[in-house]
């Protein structure tokens, strides 16, 4: 009986750890994709001095769209995408100064992605949810 309980506990623990690690890895991959897309747009806008609309990838967990926190410039010189549901995050370097504590939180309206705007402002690069001036144009790589 004791052996059975021990095996059952081990199996439950193994399944939980396995499921958690798979979810974390999937969440991390999505966070990397999101932050890479955002960093490319921000760095392009910095380098060429433009305001650009770009498409952010969606985040999924268990087949459902989940919220994403995208933080610009904190810590300085980086952009970070976090998935609170999976407790994972990924960061990329950005090259220009940013507006202080700039953050957007979004859940995609469609599987196509979420439109966002990166704009050159007086206090640095600014990131907002939705397209710039209502015009949707993807940023060239």
């Amino acid at each position, binding site marked *: 009986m004791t052996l059975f309980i021990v095996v059952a506990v*081990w199996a439950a623990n193994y399944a939980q750890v396995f499921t958690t690690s798979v979810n974390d890895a999937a969440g991390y991959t999505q966070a990397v994709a999101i932050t890479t897309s955002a960093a490319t747009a921000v760095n392009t806008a*910095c380098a060429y001095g433009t305001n650009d609309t770009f498409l952010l990838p969606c985040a999924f967990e268990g087949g459902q769209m989940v919220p994403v926190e995208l933080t610009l410039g904190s810590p300085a010189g980086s952009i970070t995408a976090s998935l609170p549901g999976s407790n994972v995050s990924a960061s990329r*370097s950005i090259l220009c100064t940013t507006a202080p504590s700039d953050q957007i939180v979004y859940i995609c309206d469609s599987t196509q992605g979420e439109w966002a705007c990166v704009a050159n402002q007086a206090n640095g690069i600014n990131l907002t949810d939705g397209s710039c001036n209502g015009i949707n144009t993807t940023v060239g790589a």
Partner: protein
Amino acid sequence: MSNNLKLRKISRGQRGQLFSVDFILAVAFLVIGLGAVLQTSAAIQQSSASRAQITSDLAVPLSQMIANGEPFIAPSTPYCVRWSNQTDAMDNPSCHSFSCGPSGGNIYASQRLIQCYNSTFVPPALNGTCLMTVYTCE
């Protein structure tokens, strides 16, 4: 006689128990702990593999900003700026051994033609047009 036999049977039964409950529990917890460690290690390796597949375009905006003479925040990843005139005499030697970590990560590069005297990365003695190459890591 029968009392002696009964006592002997009980005594033999206690000695016949190969593993105590405490021992079984200790082994079980060891196995559980080992399983958790192995799973965590596998997850970390999977994350590293995901990270290695991401391409970097950091060299492109960095070279553009240098060419424009714009101030920029030094990236957290290693980078190197190399310049050369036609004879390559003013090459930046520090870029010769540029590498992306001991495991040999990918190196990305982007080139721009710049006015040498207009760049803080080029020695003042060098005039004319320079070919600038920016190297970055992932």
